[in-house]
Structure formats: structure tokens, C-alpha cells
């Protein structure tokens, strides 16, 4: 314990976050990373560095000891780093990558597809107590944020303390959590070289509730719902770019193979087409990491598409979690002679 405190003071208090005691996990990651860099086990470290605001850390490489001044790991580090390993796998030497439990599913799915090289990765499974959604905090009327405490991983507190230009505000950690953390897949990393820090059970909901609600609607209501939701889409492609399953070298929407190249949206169907195809292309491979919904600047609940496929796959072809293992076949590259007929869609009503 003693050495960690020391290490923290060495690293300096450069983050916007509060006291050293609470940054135990972050410090341990930093120390271990430095150690591995120093002994040549890894050539670089893939983690998060502090952004310009207290709540927007961004993925970054750390190659030298001094780089770590900016290294953060807290409740706002939602970004799934596994997709970055596709490029990192091409680099010389190993890359140390910090993966949260849910990120490891994505990493394993990418391994299955030969998109990342296991031998080029040194995985530190980092603990997670649920990741935060700044939009939710803002939605509570908390504006002008200067700093936030309570977002650290080891903090047992259930409350976030937010220092704003209007004074100090608080809110419950759980209320500020990303939707995906309420339906968390679990505390365990499915693949790692070592783990640092404890994870917390945050699952307090059923991930298919929303899907079921939509399924129960009439065709008119469904259509109206998705028309409203998708008419917000600006085709910025953020969902595609962040998605670990959407890792094609060149997306079909950027190539001429289907005459779908650089297609501008004319009406809401264009987005539907894009989002249906995107969801279909990742069906059976999507780990439900929730990054698409997290990054959507328009707040479209894109995971509703992916979860519909996941729900159908689970119901029709048996429970399946992408990335949970390295079995090469996914539900869509497999079959059973007794599979349901497509007519089941109409029969279910």
C-alpha cells in the first residue's frame, strides 16, 4: 500500500480528479505499465488520457514514462479499446491494452476473426464499477462542470460530487451510469494476462425490456418510433467507426460493390437501410458493448437494433454471447436442420 501512495505522488496530481487515496487502481495500472515498458515486455501502452474536460478522457498510446502524467482510468473511460488493437497488432512489439470486462468480449471476437493478434497484446483487465454517461448528468440540470469526484474505480461511494461554477452538486452514481452498465454482462474478464482492480456488479435491468416494448407495438407505432428515432441520424458514421465488429477495411457503404457508396440521405429510409445493414453485418458478432449508442451525437438508441438480433438469435438458435469463446462459427455462419422457418416472424405476430 505504502509504495502505491508513493507512486501516486511521483505521478503527480495532474488529473482533474480528487485525492490520491481514491486513485489506487489507476496508479497500479500506471506502475505496472511502466514496469512492463521498462523491461521491454511491451513497446507501448494503450489506455486513456485526460481530455480537455473532466469527463472526456480519450484513447491514447503511452510510450514513454513522462506520457503517463496524462493517463487516467475512471468512470468516464467508457471507450472500448479493443478495436484499436487491430491497428496496434500491425505495430512492432507488444501493446499493453487496458480492457474492461465487457471490452474483453470484443477483443475475443476480434481474435476469432483474425483481426487482432493475441501475441501482440498484453491485456490488463481493469476493474469496472460501471461507466458514466455525461449526458445523463447534464440531463439532471448539472451544468458548468469544473471537476467531478467519486468517478474513481476504487471509490466505494455511491455518489458523485460535482463541482460546478454554480457550486457543488451531487447525484447518485447509478443514476449517471450508461444504459449498457445497467445490463452489464458481468464482472469477469474473458481474456487477460493479468487483472488490476475490483469490478462491481451493476446489472439491475433486463436488456431486452426495451426491445420487447417495441415488439409489442402495432406496425404503425413501430414505424413511427423508428422514423422519429432515426430521423435524428446525420450519418456521421460515429457508430460505425467506434464499433469493434464494424471493422471492415472498407465498409460497403464506402465501396462500389453494392452501389451504396457515399449515399446521401434523402428520407428516413436511407438511415433505416444503413442501420439495418449495419446491424445485420454485425449480427451474431455484436457483443452488445453499447459503444454505438454511447458515441451517437444525436443520442439515437442504436443498440435497439443489435439487441433485436441478439434476442432473436437467443430465442431461435439458442443463447449466444459473441466473444464469450473462440468457437469459429457464429449463429449466422452456422445452422441446424431443425431451425425455425422464416414464417415464424409472421406467426409470432
Amino acid at each position, binding site marked *: 500500500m505504502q509504495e502505491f501512495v508513493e507512486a501516486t505522488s511521483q505521478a503527480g496530481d495532474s488529473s482533474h480528479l480528487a485525492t490520491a487515496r481514491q486513485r489506487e487502481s489507476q496508479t497500479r495500472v500506471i506502475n505496472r505499465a511502466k514496469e512492463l515498458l521498462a523491461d521491454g515486455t511491451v513497446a507501448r501502452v494503450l489506455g486513456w488520457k485526460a481530455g480537455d474536460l473532466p469527463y472526456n478522457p480519450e484513447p491514447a498510446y503511452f510510450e514513454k514514462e513522462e506520457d503517463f502524467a496524462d493517463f487516467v482510468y475512471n468512470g468516464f473511460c467508457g471507450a472500448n479499446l479493443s478495436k484499436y488493437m487491430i491497428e496496434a497488432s500491425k505495430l512492432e512489439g507488444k501493446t499493453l491494452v487496458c480492457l474492461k470486462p465487457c471490452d474483453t468480449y470484443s477483443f475475443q471476437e476480434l481474435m476469432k476473426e483474425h483481426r487482432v493478434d493475441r501475441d501482440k497484446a498484453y491485456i490488463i483487465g481493469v476493474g469496472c464499477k460501471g461507466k458514466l454517461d455525461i449526458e445523463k448528468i447534464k440531463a439532471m440540470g448539472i451544468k458548468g462542470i469544473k471537476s467531478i469526484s467519486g468517478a474513481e474505480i476504487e471509490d466505494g461511494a455511491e455518489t458523485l460530487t460535482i463541482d460546478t461554477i454554480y457550486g457543488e452538486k451531487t447525484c447518485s452514481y447509478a443514476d449517471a451510469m450508461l444504459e449498457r452498465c445497467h445490463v452489464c454482462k458481468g464482472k469477469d474478464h474473458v481474456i487477460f494476462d493479468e487483472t488490476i482492480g475490483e469490478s462491481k456488479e451493476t446489472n439491475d435491468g433486463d436488456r431486452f425490456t426495451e*426491445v420487447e416494448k*417495441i*415488439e409489442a*407495438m402495432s*406496425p*404503425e*407505432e*413501430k*414505424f*413511427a*418510433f*423508428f422514423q422519429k428515432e432515426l430521423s435524428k441520424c446525420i450519418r456521421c458514421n460515429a457508430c460505425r467507426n467506434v464499433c469493434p465488429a464494424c471493422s471492415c477495411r472498407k465498409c*460497403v457503404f464506402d465501396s462500389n460493390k*453494392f452501389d*451504396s457508396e457515399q449515399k446521401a440521405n*434523402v*428520407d428516413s*429510409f*436511407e438511415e*433505416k*437501410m444503413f442501420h*439495418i*445493414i449495419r*446491424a*445485420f453485418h454485425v*449480427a451474431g458478432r455484436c457483443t452488445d458493448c453499447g459503444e454505438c449508442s454511447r458515441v451517437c451525437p444525436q443520442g439515437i438508441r442504436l443498440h435497439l*437494433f443489435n439487441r*433485436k*438480433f441478439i434476442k*432473436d*438469435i437467443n430465442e*431461435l*438458435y439458442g443463447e449466444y454471447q459473441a466473444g464469450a469463446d473462440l468457437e469459429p462459427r457464429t*449463429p*449466422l*455462419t*452456422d*445452422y*441446424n*436442420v431443425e*431451425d*425455425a*422457418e*422464416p*414464417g*415464424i*416472424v*409472421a406467426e409470432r405476430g
Partner: protein
Amino acid sequence: MSIEKNEEFRPKIVAFCCNWCSYAGADLAGSSRMTYSADVKIIRVPCSCRVNPMFILRAFERGADGVIMCGCHPGDCHYTSGNYYARRRMTLLFSMLDYIGVESGRTRVEWVSAAEGAKFSETMHEFVDKITSLGKNVRLEDLRCRNL
């Protein structure tokens, strides 16, 4: 075009038929003179597993009112397992279309063997009736292409 009719609603229906069973079944319906609506236009594909969901969405986008895919009966695929994959793909795609509010009756899969000319004709009858009762597909149409 001059032969365009503008009387009652005539649906546009695209049928994807696999070369080995369903296309041959359609041929048999033809040589047995088993009539069905001229609104059905057949596209020949080697196997039902060649049908990309993109094709189906594109058909709807371009104004098709219904899309039906026909293949060999499960277990009888000329390529052993193609229709099994197609079955899963179409089930999931149709379910998704249903989920976003496209009437499930606009999509259909039917397994038709080379010997089932009568079944092909009956299936097309039923499907055309179904689409006619659903009316024009407005939910998935691409506005730009309407007046081409």
C-alpha cells in the same frame, strides 16, 4: 412508358429463385400452364444463400411491394447447406423488418422443389393476394426513385 397502366393497384413483386429447385419449379409451372399474376418477376440466383439482405432492401427501396425468396427444400439444397444459411438470414432480416414496422406479409420464404410447379403457382397466387391486400409499400420506398 406507354405500357404503364394506371388503373387499380398492381403490386410490384420480386421473386428470388434458386437455379436448381425453385427456378425449375417456376419453369414447370410455366410448361404446365399454371397461371399466376404477371406482377411477379423472377430473378435467378444460383442458390437461396446468394440472396443478400441488401438485395431485398434495395427492391423495397426501389418500390417493390413484396419480396419472396424461393429455394430448395431444407435438406435438398444443391449445394448441401446453402438454404440452411439462407433460412437463418431471412428469418432474422424479416424479423428486423417486422420490428421497424414493415408489415411481415411483404416478405416471404417458400421452399419449392423442381417438381412443384403447382406449389409455385399457388404460392405466387397467395403472395400476390396478400400484397394486394396490404396495398402499396410506402414505408420503405426511396423517394428519389419514385418518378424515374
